[in-house]
Each structure stands twice: as structure tokens, then as C-alpha cells.
């Protein structure tokens, strides 16, 4: 009996010591690793300018947290889960990185979240689209911040169906993200009384969309929807404009479109397209003020991903400050308990599955006559409240939620 008592006491003591050790910042340094596509397809929407946003957050925080240094390392993941995994493993195991930020390609985020969990470190996903990141792939070690495919379908698809777009033809990028988005769109369109009359899966990437646009035109569908991203989407929109898709009475719905994409297309080709976004730089005084500072630093207007990286880094540093710890679970708990109120989100909150829920926006690209400058691109048509936008916890397959 005494033996058991002794064991128990020492176990409790050890646990307390571990707990005590956690309540401080390791190595007197908070080290953040920024991992993103710095040179490929997703470079402009996240990339080097995302790093600039992260550095802005650190500078605005004062460069130090509770007297501890804040250090940043960064790397190009080349959109490869393999490259990303080995980089993050090195960072966590040899270089004392406490938090990994950026995380753009969904495949990269899913691979990295496993390594974060193994090492009990924290990751904040800001660029990825796949809603599975906080559904079947959720872990207690990462947070998904800016947006995902669920609100993209909820926002754009439901708006377009309600405006009378009953029959749909979907051009889908033939890989995991495209399939996920197509599935989410099908659900929303059918729930709202619409019908999918055809889908076409195109290779990723596709430089020439003329053949696919021709098939979409011939289908006679009310809506031609693009379940793809980046250059595939801009190429498809350009070709649709060349072949007169909207002039012949069909609606074009781009399900994932970033500010940088619309800027590259120009309002001439993109006018009237509806899209869902997590943030837009020209929404109010606060967003404009931040976007001005960002533009001074980078020369461009920020995407929702850039703004999200700034906001999430702030939320992270505040949590480290409040708890005086950089231990993943301590910080994550504090981040979840603190509502997010900044230039990115109002009353945003991080749920137990790691999803940051906040209002999303349905935007429409301005016409050349309405647009007053090269970055004056969107009209915000509608605010989609957080509860309506994101997958409800009742539908979640995340073990952190279902095991409760």
C-alpha cells in the first residue's frame, strides 16, 4: 500500500513539475516557422507577402513577448508534402520552432499537422481550402484560420441558385481539393432546389480551357461553375470571356477566387463574377488602414490569407503573453478562450475542432465603370454570418468533437 502511495505521490509530483515547466517560454525565445509556397502557383496569394504580414504582426506586438525574443524562420514548401514534412521535422526537432504559420496547399497542411501532433507543437493553417483539415483530419495541434471549402460553396453556390441559376455544369480540377469543392457545391445546389446537369474533370493544371468551355456552353446549363483554383480559374475565366459565355446568358460562378487572381484578370474579364471571401481590404476604416500599411511594405493590396496570417499571429502572441508559455496545448486553450476582434474578424472564435469561425462575405467583382483603381475590385453584396457559413459541429467527423 505504501508502495502504491509513494508511486502515486511521485507521479503527481512529476506531473506538477512538468506542468510548472510548461508555464514558461522555452529557451526564452518564441520561434515561429513560416512555411508556404514561395515560388509556385500559390506564391502571390500567400508566399513572401505572407511572411511580410507575419513580420508586421511581430513588429506591432513590440518584437518581444514577456521579455522573450521572437524569432522567425521561413521556407519554401514547393507545394510538396514531402518537402514540407522534412522541413517541419527539422524545425521542430532541431531548431526549437514553437509554432508553424502559413500552410497553404491542403496536402501540405494535412501532412504537417501529423508531425505537429507527434511533437506536440502548434500550427496555424491560413491558406488551405480543404474543409477536411478540421473535419476528418483535425488534431489538437492545429488551427484553421481564414476560410475553407464549406463556406465557399455555402456563400457563392447558394447565392447563385437563389438568383435563379437552377441548372449547373461544373468544371472540376481533377484532384482532392477540386473533388471536395465539387461535393460541397452539389450538396448546396441540390438543397436549394437546383440541379447538377453535368460535371467535367479536367487535369491539373490545364493551360487551355477552350475545349472545356465549349462543352459547358453546349450543355445549356444556367450556371457554369469553376471548382478549381489559381491559374486554372483565371485561364477558364479568360477563355469564358473570349467565347462569350456570359453574353450568351450563362452565369459564371468561380468558387475559389483570390484578390490576386481578380487583379490579374482585370475587371474587364472578371466583372460581375460572384465569389466568397473571408476578408476584403476595402471594407471599413480599420481594414483600409491596415491594407495601406501592408501596401507600403509590399507594393500590393493584401489577400484574405495575408490578413489572416497577421491576425492569427497576433492572436497567438497574445495567448503566449497571457499564459507566459509557449507550450502548444496551453497556448491553444488560451487562443480558444479569447474572442478575436481585430481588423480581420469581429467576434471570431476558435472552436474545439480547431476551426476559426467568423463572418464570411459574398462579393461581386465591379464593372470597369465602377472600379476606381487597380485594386478597387469588389462590392460586398452580403455578410454570411459565422454560424451559417461554416460546417456546424453537429455534422463534424473530428474526433475531438465526436469523442465528447
Amino acid at each position: 500500500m505504501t508502495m502504491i502511495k509513494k508511486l502515486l505521490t511521485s507521479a503527481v509530483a512529476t506531473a506538477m513539475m512538468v506542468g510548472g515547466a510548461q508555464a514558461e517560454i522555452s529557451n526564452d525565445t518564441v520561434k515561429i516557422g513560416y512555411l508556404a509556397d514561395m515560388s509556385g502557383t500559390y506564391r502571390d496569394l500567400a508566399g513572401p507577402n505572407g511572411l511580410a504580414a507575419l513580420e508586421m504582426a511581430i513588429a506591432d506586438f513590440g518584437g518581444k513577448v514577456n521579455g522573450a525574443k521572437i524569432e522567425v524562420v521561413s521556407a519554401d514548401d514547393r507545394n510538396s508534402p514531402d518537402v514540407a514534412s522534412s522541413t517541419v521535422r527539422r524545425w521542430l526537432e532541431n531548431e526549437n520552432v514553437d509554432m508553424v504559420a502559413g500552410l497553404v496547399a491542403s496536402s501540405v497542411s494535412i501532412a504537417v499537422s501529423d508531425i505537429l501532433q507527434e511533437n506536440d507543437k502548434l500550427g496555424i493553417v491560413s491558406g488551405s481550402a480543404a474543409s477536411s483539415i478540421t473535419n476528418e483530419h483535425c488534431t489538437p495541434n492545429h488551427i484553421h484560420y481564414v476560410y475553407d471549402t464549406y463556406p465557399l460553396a455555402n456563400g457563392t453556390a447558394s447565392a447563385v441558385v437563389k438568383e435563379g441559376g437552377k441548372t449547373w455544369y461544373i468544371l472540376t480540377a481533377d484532384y482532392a481539393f477540386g473533388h471536395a469543392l465539387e461535393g460541397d457545391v452539389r450538396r448546396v445546389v441540390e438543397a436549394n432546389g437546383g440541379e447538377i446537369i453535368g460535371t467535367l474533370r479536367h487535369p491539373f493544371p490545364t493551360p487551355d480551357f477552350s475545349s472545356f468551355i465549349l462543352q459547358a456552353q453546349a450543355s445549356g446549363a444556367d450556371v457554369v461553375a469553376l471548382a478549381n483554383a489559381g491559374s486554372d480559374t483565371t485561364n477558364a475565366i479568360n477563355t469564358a470571356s473570349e467565347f462569350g459565355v456570359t453574353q450568351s446568358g450563362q452565369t459564371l460562378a468561380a468558387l475559389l477566387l483570390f484578390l490576386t487572381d481578380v487583379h490579374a484578370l482585370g475587371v474587364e474579364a472578371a466583372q460581375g463574377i460572384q465569389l466568397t471571401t473571408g476578408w476584403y481590404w476595402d471594407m471599413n476604416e480599420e481594414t483600409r488602414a491596415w491594407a495601406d500599411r501592408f501596401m507600403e511594405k509590399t507594393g500590393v493590396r493584401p489577400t484574405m490569407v495575408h490578413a489572416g496570417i497577421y491576425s492569427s499571429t497576433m492572436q497567438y502572441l497574445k495567448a503566449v503573453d497571457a499564459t507566459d508559455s509557449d507550450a502548444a496545448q496551453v497556448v491553444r486553450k488560451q487562443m480558444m478562450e479569447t474572442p478575436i476582434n481585430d481588423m480581420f474578424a469581429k467576434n471570431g472564435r476558435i472552436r474545439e475542432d480547431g476551426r476559426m469561425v467568423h463572418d464570411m462575405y459574398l462579393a461581386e467583382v465591379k464593372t470597369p465603370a465602377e472600379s476606381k483603381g487597380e485594386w478597387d475590385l469588389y462590392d460586398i453584396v452580403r455578410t454570411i454570418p459565422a454560424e451559417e457559413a461554416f460546417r456546424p459541429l453537429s455534422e463534424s467527423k473530428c474526433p475531438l468533437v465526436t469523442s465528447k
Partner: protein
Amino acid sequence: MSMIFGVPLAVLAGQLLIGVINGAFYALLSLGLAVIFGLLKIINFAHGAMYMLGAMSTVILFDALGINYWVALFVAPLLVGAFGVVIEYFLLRRIAGQDHIYSLLLTFGVALLIGGVLTNIYGVSGLRYSMPDVFQGGMKLGFMFLPYYRVWVIVLALLICFGTWFMIEKTKLGAYLRAGTEDSQLMQGFGINVPLLISLTYGFGVMLAAFAGVLAAPIYSVTPVMGSHILITVFAVVVIGGMGSIGGAIITGILMGVIEGLTKTFYPPASSAVIFLVMVVVLMFRPSGLFGKEA
């Protein structure tokens, strides 16, 4: 409406036409590659980068100097061609006569450098280029809507292809070129400046790529990575046609455009692979390509 394998005839007709248009693009690009390989024995992996430079310089010339499409059609290929001559003079000349793999690696490195530098400056989202006003709109053919610009592309591409073939195969200049690369010492004995001829030939091949780039600028996203996507396809076209065969490159280019277009109609996910499938089958039965001379 009559159907073929579940596809309406009208849709099929549209796809065939689009296939020919894209094929004209492939023909133009593979023609440049075939000229460079056929005459100089250089495997030019920088060809995609030169195509991209053609498109990028069209946009940059317009943004910076207000040079319009019609002028760019001449100026951009000349500028990029001159750049090609510089590369030939300072780099490729040093590995002349070495194994093909050296030219492949060297030009691949050049392509990576050019792509990297431009990505850093211009990003990857793409530069905007408006179509010239005369080409706005298109004609209704009954089975499809055909943009005027695509018609222009096919006419111009075919003209250039035919002109190049004619020059190399049927004129005296072409004869010098072919002879100069076969036996340069003999030709130098006749007082012909063979090194200059080689520089100019490389420059000309590069010009063809840049010209295709100018044609592409109004219809595709102009980005520093646009060349890398198309390069491998074009190489496959050249291999199928027979490395170095000028006529083979042109005919195969158009043929592959059509085959790809049909695949996009009947089974779209295979459309990026179908050309390679054809390549495998052709190489199994004719190792030197459809129009290549037996080795």
C-alpha cells in the same frame, strides 16, 4: 441531333476545330524545336522559357512603352531572338560537339534562371493583356461560337510554319544551312561564316517560340511559369514527328491538337496524358518518329 458515342455531332465539330487551332500552336512551337535540333543538334529545353519571354515581353512592352500588339508581333520575337543569339554565343557555343545531354542540361538551367528571376519580379498570378479591338467578338457557326482571334492565330501560325518549311527545304539559304551544319569545314572553305550561321539559326528557332508567345498573350494567363507547362507536350510532339523533321513537326503538331481535343470531349481526365500515350505507341513501332529518317 445525331450523336457519335454519346456526343452530339455539333459539339464534336466544335472540338475538332478547337483541336486544329491548338494544334497550330503546337506546330509553331515544335517547329522551332525541330529547326534547332535538326540543324544544330541542340536539345533546347529553354524553348518554353523563350515562348514565355515572347508573351511577357509583349505585355511589358505595352505597359512600359505603350507598344501595341501589331508592333509587338515583330519587335518581341526580334528582341527574344537577339537574346537567343547572345545565349548561343556565350554559352551553347562552348559545348558544341559534345553529347546532347550537355545542351539539354545547359538550356534547362537557363530556363530555370529566367523563370526564377521573372517570378521574383512579376509574381505568378499573371499579367493582364487586352485583346486588340479588331478581334473582339466572334462568329456564330451554328455548332459553336468561334472568336475572331482564334481564326487569326490559326491563319498566322500556318503561314509561318509553311514559310519556314519552304525556306529551309526549298531555298538556297536553306541549303547552306543544312550543308553548314553537316560539314562546317567544307562550308568555311567556300567562304561561308558558319559560326554566324549557327548563331542566327538558334536565334531564328527562338524567334519562332517567342512569336507563339506573342500570339498566346491575349488568350492565356501570361505568367513566368506558362512555358514550363507546354514544353513537355511540345517535346513529345517533336519526338512523335521525328526529331529534327521540319515537316513532321508541323503535321504532328496539328494532329496532336486534334487528338487532344477529341480526348477532352470523350474522356477529359486523360487529355494531358494522351499525347504521351501516342508517343509510346509510335516509338514502339517507329523509333525515329513518324517522319524521322531511319537512324
